[in-house]
């Protein structure tokens, strides 16, 4: 049952359980929890940011993302953890912008298709 996998992983989104990455999101600096293993596996952006060459990894896995709104980022996280996302017209443009920046091609194409229909 592939749906069960997504449902279980959804519970990990922004969960402090086992979290080893802190994400400081938006101008309001909302703190979210992340799991390095999942983020690195699902996204080349996070994989690069979390290598030892950079400040993020060297100072306790803290990643600032001031130019994305917390609500949008939470959706991004859900997508990364579960591979699924419910889209709606109010957020789709912001999601497209974020997906482009974070090199999430899958999500980007999905959003673009939704926006066109």
């Amino acid at each position, binding site marked *: 049952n592939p749906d069960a996998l997504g449902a279980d992983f959804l519970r990990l989104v922004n969960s402090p359980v086992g979290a080893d990455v802190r994400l400081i999101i938006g101008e309001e600096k909302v703190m979210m929890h992340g799991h390095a293993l999942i983020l690195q596996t699902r996204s*080349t952006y996070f994989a690069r940011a979390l290598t030892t060459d950079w*400040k*993020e990894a060297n100072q306790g896995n803290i990643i600032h*993302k001031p*130019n994305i709104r917390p609500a949008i980022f939470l959706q991004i996280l859900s997508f990364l953890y579960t591979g699924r996302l419910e889209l709606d017209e109010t957020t789709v443009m912001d999601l497209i912008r974020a997906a482009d920046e974070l*090199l999430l091609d899958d999500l980007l194409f999905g959003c673009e298709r939704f926006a066109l229909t």
Partner: protein
Amino acid sequence: MLSYEEIYRCGYNLVIHKWGERLYNGVKELIEQYLESEAESKVVPVLGVADTSPAEGVQVLKVMQKLWKHHVTCLLMMSDILVHMDRNYVVANRLPKTYDMGLFLFRDSVIRSPKYPIQSHLQMVLLNQITMERKGDVIDRGAVKSCTEMLLEMKENNGNDPIYIADFENLFIETSREFYRVESDDLVRRFDPPEYMRKVENRLDEEQLRCSHYLTEKTEPKIRLIVEQEMIAKHLRTVMEMENWGLKQLLINSRLGDLDRMYRLFSRVPDGARELQGGLSDYIRECGKSINANIQASTIDTVEKGIPLGVALALRWVQEVLDLKERFDAFLAQAFAKDKSFETAINSAFESFINLNPKAPEFMSLFIDNKLKKDFKGKSDDEIDTILNKTTTLFRFLSDKDIFERYYKQHLSSRLLHGKSLSDEVERGMISKLKIECGYQFTSKLEGMFTDMRLSTDTMGAFREFLENAVDTPPTELNVTVLTSTFWPVPSTPVACNLPTQFLAASKVFERFYTSRHNGRKLTWHATMGNVDLRATFNSRKHELNVSTMAAIVLLIFNDIPDGETIPYTTIEQETGLPADQLKRTLQSVACGKFKILIKEPKSRDIDDTDVFKFNSAFSEKLSRIKIQTIASKVETSSELKETHEKVEDARKHMAEAAIVRVMKNRKTLDHNNLITEVIGQLQGRFNPAPSMIKKRIEALIDREYLERAPGDRAIYNYLA
């Protein structure tokens, strides 16, 4: 420490705000400037070291290596940051991605710097290191390896070929060619072939290891080709024909290891295997020539007792050919990897010299004859089989198999009729080997001879039963072998002789018995082919003599005259009616051999028309039963040889005509060339027919109206049913 997110976001923002071009070119310019200043400050200062000392040149490699490593690390980080640019602006404008652009910059600003002679120094240092290692120095392989890896990493503008090829490999190959050209000229002069070949082999191994250790596998076939061309291909003949330990001496001394090395090395280059095969053939032919020269009578010193000189020569010839063949079988298996093309070359060399000896078919048959009569005594089945197999291999080389058949039939017939064969089973074994080689037709008559022998035993049993109830028993015991005339090599008319009356009487009884059982069969008596047991009374005692029928006829004449009286040769000739040459041989066996039953005057080894003979009543010998040998199978005299060849020629004409008719009957119409080809194909197993001979046969068949020339085209024949 830099934040990935911040720098990435900057790059991202520039690209989405259409500043991609400025970002890309800015990065490019920055890297270029940095590389140029690094080259100037770090690489250029060590270049001079390479000029002054080849060994210290490795420093250039080390500095280069450090700069390269750092550059690659930086490029990877820049690529990580500029992923968004690489995926959007770069792709849209078909530019090299950041990482590749950075490699091109290193290539053009450092390696191929137009300002500094870095490229030439790098090449010089790399080539010097390799030359040093070839000369036996230990070098820093790691430093060389990291440099070649660097050159492999950077590509030409097509993005495909590594600059390793243009900036290193081409030069490497050219300098290596020069190195090995000089080295091989020097080594081939200083060392004998075995040592030279070992050195070549080492060089090949070294170059292979060099490629796998610090160049690349892709260079391996190229450098191998250079070593092969310079060290092997250019010196094939020199190495092979060298006086001291060239091919000939390796063969003479059976240096299997060196021969094997020569085979493996020569086989690497075009023509190498062919040259070596040529050398082997020349040597075999040379050996064959001296073996063939050895059949002159003067060349034999010791003749085994009881073997005529001619036979001894034949036996030695075959044995020498067999020995040579055995040596080459060993070479083939242990030095030439059982290579089929070498086997063919060796075989054809044997074939050519064997067939240069016109007596080869006779010699081979005599050899087998001797084995089956004497040599196989006390040998195991395996030993016998090995010898027969080897002889069969030689037989395969004979082109005149039909002539061999003729001799074999003669020798077999003498073995069977005189009971001289050691084993029926071995005889049949040999025939089955010939059958495998040449087919049923070849051996059917030989097998027929065995059948006759068996049937004759049965016939004699029946004859003895017949005699028990017969009224007129013959005055002497009689043993008859009935031969089918077409199977046996018997003359069409028997040798003339006057049989004593008691012999004649006995033969009449048998004739009556035989024709009563086999109505319509015609018996022809070949009395002179048989032998007789005589009881003879001498002064001291009685002896039983086993002699040829001819000798018996001669001896019985002496029964009719008083003891001590002599009979002149001419009288004996008249009374016996034997032809002179047969009679002389017979007299030799009873008067000049080991057992002198007759005394010849004057005493000598040869029989003369003026000689006289008398019975040797003083003859004395320990054994009571004495076997007097007739002159054994021998090499033919020249007149016999001529006769044999005429018979063979006749037989060949028949075989050729039969083959032509077979082909034409099948094809009905065929052109001249195809007919010749097919006929040759059919006859090859027996002898090698000349096309001119076949042409004559075709004409003869046209004359006899078996064939006609097609109207309008003389080159086409029609079959006339």
